[in-house]
C-alpha cells in the first residue's frame, strides 16, 4: 500500500517534469526554432526556420504539441536529433547504462569509505582522528570536481602513468581496461560525495548515540560493539540514506563535468554535445531521462528508507 502510494507520487512527478521540459521551450521569449538556428548573432534564413518549425511541430497549436509529446513519451519516442536525424531515444539508451555504471561505482566507493570513516570519527569525537577526517572532508568538498578530475589526470595518468587518462572500453571487449577507465572518474565523483557521507554519518551517529534507546541498550548490559552495530548504526543510517538520495540526484548533474574531463561517452557527454550543437530535441530528451532517473532514484531510496525504518511504512 505504502509502496503503491510512493509509486503513484513518483509517476505524477515524472508527468510534471515532462510537462515542464515541454513548456520550457515554449515559454522562452522568441521563437525557439529561430534561437536554435541563430549562431553568433546572424539571423537565419526564414525558409530554414519555417522548415525546422514544421519538423518540431511548432506550427501546430500548443495543446496538439503537448499531446503528441506525451503520447510519444508513453511509447518511448523522444523525437529525432537535429544533427544526424538519429532517434533520440536510441542514442539516450546507448549512453544511459554507462552513466549509471559510473554513478553506481562512485556511490559504492563513497559509501565504502564515507560511512565507516564517519562512524569512527563520531565514536572518537573530538580526538585527532575525528579532526583529521573532518578537515580532510572539508578540504575535499571545497575542490570542484573538474579540478579534482583534471589534477588526477595530471598525477595518475600523465606523471605516474598508473591509469588511462580517460575514454571508454566496452566491458565485453576488455574488462581490465573497462574498469581501469572507470576508476578515475568514479574516484573523482567520490571526492565530493564521500565527504558529504562522512559528515552526515558522523552527525547522525553522534545524534543517535545520545538517544534514550541507546541508554536502554547500555542499561541492558549490551556490549559497545553490539550497541554500535544494532542500536546506533541502523538508526543513524536512516537520515544518511535520505542525503545519499538527494546527492545522487545532484550527482547525475555532476557527471556532466566528470564525463567531460575524462572523455567518458556517457549521457552527460551527449548532453554537452547537443547543447553546443543546439540540438534541442536531444537536450530535451536527455534532460527528461535524467530527471526521470532522479525521480526513480528517490523512489528507490524511499523504499530502502522504508526497509530501514518500520515507522515509515505506516505513516
Amino acid at each position, binding site marked *: 500500500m505504502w509502496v503503491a502510494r510512493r509509486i503513484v507520487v513518483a509517476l505524477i512527478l515524472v508527468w510534471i517534469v515532462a510537462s515542464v521540459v515541454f513548456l520550457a521551450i515554449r515559454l522562452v521569449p522568441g521563437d525557439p526554432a529561430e*534561437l536554435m538556428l541563430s549562431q553568433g548573432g546572424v539571423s537565419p534564413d526564414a525558409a530554414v526556420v519555417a522548415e525546422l518549425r514544421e519538423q518540431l511541430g511548432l506550427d501546430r497549436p500548443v495543446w496538439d504539441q503537448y499531446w503528441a509529446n506525451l503520447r510519444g513519451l508513453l511509447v518511448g519516442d523522444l523525437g529525432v536529433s537535429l544533427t544526424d536525424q538519429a532517434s533520440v531515444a536510441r542514442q539516450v539508451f546507448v549512453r544511459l547504462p554507462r552513466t549509471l555504471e559510473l554513478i553506481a561505482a562512485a556511490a559504492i566507493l563513497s559509501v565504502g569509505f564515507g560511512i565507516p570513516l564517519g562512524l569512527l570519527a563520531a565514536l572518537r569525537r573530538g580526538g585527532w582522528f575525528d579532526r583529521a577526517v573532518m578537515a580532510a572532508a572539508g578540504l575535499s568538498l571545497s575542490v570542484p570536481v573538474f579540478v579534482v578530475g*583534471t589534477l588526477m589526470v595530471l598525477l595518475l595518468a600523465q606523471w605516474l602513468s598508473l591509469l588511462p587518462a580517460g575514454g571508454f572500453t566496452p566491458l565485453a571487449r576488455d574488462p581490465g581496461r573497462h574498469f581501469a577507465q572507470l576508476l578515475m572518474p568514479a574516484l573523482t565523483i567520490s571526492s565530493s560525495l564521500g565527504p558529504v557521507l562522512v559528515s552526515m554519518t558522523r552527525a547522525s551517529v553522534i545524534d543517535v548515540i545520545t538517544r534514550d534507546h541507546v541508554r536502554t541498550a547500555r542499561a*541492558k548490559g*549490551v556490549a559497545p560493539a553490539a550497541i554500535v552495530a544494532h542500536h546506533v548504526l541502523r538508526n543513524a543510517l536512516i537520515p544518511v540514506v535520505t542525503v545519499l538520495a538527494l546527492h545522487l540526484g545532484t550527482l547525475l548533474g555532476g557527471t556532466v563535468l566528470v564525463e567531460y574531463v575524462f572523455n567518458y561517452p556517457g549521457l552527460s557527454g551527449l548532453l554537452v554535445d547537443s547543447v553546443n550543437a543546439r540540438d534541442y530535441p536531444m537536450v530535451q530528451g536527455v534532460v527528461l531521462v535524467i*530527471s526521470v532517473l532522479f525521480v526513480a532514484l528517490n523512489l528507490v531510496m524511499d523504499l530502502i528508507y522504508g526497509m530501514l525504518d*518500520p515507522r515509515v511504512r505506516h505513516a
Partner: protein
Amino acid sequence: MRRISPVPVAAVGLIGLVALVVPWLGLPDPVTIDVSNRLSPPSWQHWLGQDEVGRDILSRLLWGARSSLTVAILSALIGCAIGTTLGVLGGFLGGVVDLLTIRAADIILCFPPLLLALLVVTLLGPGAATLIPVLGLVFIPGFVRVAYAGVLSVRHQEYVEAQRALGVGPARIMLRTVLPNIGGPVLVQFSLAMAAAVVLESGLSFLGLGVVPPSPSWGLMIGAARQTMAQTVLPLIWPCIALTMTVLAMNALCDAVRAAVDPHGMPPRERRWKLPALLPGLPLGAASSLSVNGLSVAIDTTAGEIRPVRRVSWQVAPSETLAIVGESGSGKSLSGLAVLGLLPPVARAAEGEVHFDGRELLRLDEPALRRLRGGDVAMIFQDPMSSLNPVHRIGRQITEAIRVHRKLSHGAAWREAVALLARVGIPDADRRARSFPHELSGGMRQRAMVAMAIANRPKLLIADEPTTALDVTIQAQVLDLLAELKAENGMGLVFITHSLPVVAEIADRVVVMYAGEVVEQGPVGEIFPRPLHPYTAALLQSAPPEDGSLPKAIPGTVPLPQHFPAGCAFAPRCAMARPECDAAPLPLEQAGPGRQTRCIRWRTLASEPTMQRAEA
C-alpha cells in the same frame, strides 16, 4: 545571534577587495594576445607566466575573481530576493499561494542544478548575462524552503498572534516580525548560494557554456590549460589554486555564519564515548543491597565545572521500595543514572561511593558494570517510546536483554520473551512480540520496558519516572505491576519520581532531593503527615489535595547548578528562611530514628505543623 568568526570573513573580504580594485592595479590587459610568448614561465613582466596564447596569467586570475564574484553575488541576490519573497508569501498567506510557491520550488528541485542551468543555457545561449539569472533560478527553491519554514515557525507564535489580534495588517507583520526572525537562516542560505555559484560558474565556463571567451574566468582558464598540460602545468595549477582557495574560504564563511546563527552551536567540551576493551567481569555475589554514599555528579561546561548532584547518600534493602522525589533539576535522575555508570558523556561521578553486593560500582570497570546492568540491577526509563529502539521488534529487544546475560538459543530466548510479555499483562503476547514499538500503546510500551528489565530477575530495579509519560489509569496499572513483581522476586526498587501521590502508593521510604542535595529522608508513613523540611511541606501542599481545595504552588524555581546558593538552597523560596540559613552549607541533621533533614529550623516546623500552611 553571536559574532561571526572573523577569519573566514577576512578571507572572503580579501578576495572581494581584489576583485573590486583589479582595474586599478596596473596589470597587463587580460585579453591581449602575445602568441610568440605562449606558455612562457613566470618573468618580471608576467609574475605567474603567460597562457596558451601569451596572455598574462596573473591578470586573468584577478580579473577572473571579479567575474566569478560578480556572478556569485548577483545570482545569490536574485535567488534570495525572489525565493525569500515567495517563501514568506507562501508561509504567511497559506492556501493557494502556499501550494503554488512550495510545489513550484519542489518541481525545480526535481532537476539537478547543473542540468537546469544547461537546459536554460541551451535556450538563451551562453554568457555571463545568461549565467546570472540561470543560477538565480537554481537558488530560488533553497530560499523558498528556508523562508517558508521560518515563517511557519513564527506564524503561530504568541507575539505574532497578538499583533494580528491588535489589527496590524499582514504586510506590516511580515516586515516587522517575520523577516527579522528568518534573517539568520536566509543569511546562511545566502552564503551557501554564493559558494555554490562560484563552483557552478567555473564548471559551466569549464564546459564552454558559461563565461564566453576571451573574458577571463577560472573555469575557462582551467579548461584551456588542460589542453597544454603535457607541455607545462603551471597555467593549470594557478587557477586551480585560486578556485579552490576561494571555495574553501566561502565554505568556511558558510560554517561561520551557520555557527553564529545556530543557537545550538558550540557545545561544551565533551568526553569521548569510548569503546572499552572486552574483558571478563567479576563473578556476581548473592546478597544484594545498594548503598550510595556521598555521591556527587560533575559536568564540565565552558564556564567551569558544575555539580548538579552534591554528596547524596541513600540505601535500599532487598524487597524495599525507596522513592526519590524532587522537581525537575533536583538531580534525582542523574543520581540514579550514576549508580550504573549510565551518565551522559558530559557528566561524571566526581566523588562518593556506590556499594552493591560488596562491590564499589563507581570504581568497577566497564565490562563488569555491563554484566551488572540488565542482570542484577535493571533500569526503566521515563519515556518508553524513545527508550525503545524504533527499528527493532519488541520481542527482539527483550531477547537481546536475555541473551546478553545468559547463554540461550534464539528460539528459547524468544519463548521466554513472549512469556515475559504475557507476565507483564500484555494480551496476545505472541503477536505483540513481533510488533514494532510504534505499533503499541504507551502503556503497553512501558510494560514491554518492564518485561525487558525483569528478564534476568534483577535484585534491584531502578525506575526513573516510569509512569510520568502515561495517563493516570495506565499509571496505576504499571505501579500495581511493579509492586507485584517486587513481592514475587524480592527485589529492591528505587523509584524516581516527582509525583507525591505515586510515592504514597508505592514507597516504603522517601528521599527528598532539592538542588542536587538530599534535604529530607525518612519512612513514608512519617514524612507525609509530619514533614521536617519546608520544601517537603511545600511539595506536599503543591500536590492536589483530596478534599478538593486548590493546591498551593511553590513560588520560584529550582536554581540552576551554576547558581546554587552557598547556604540552604531552598532559602530563597522558603517562607521560614532566616538570615542564618544563607550563611553556610547546612548539615543533614538526625531528626529521630531513620529521619534526616537539612533544615536548621526543623524543630520549629515539628512543633508548629500549622505554621507552614499559614506562611508558605
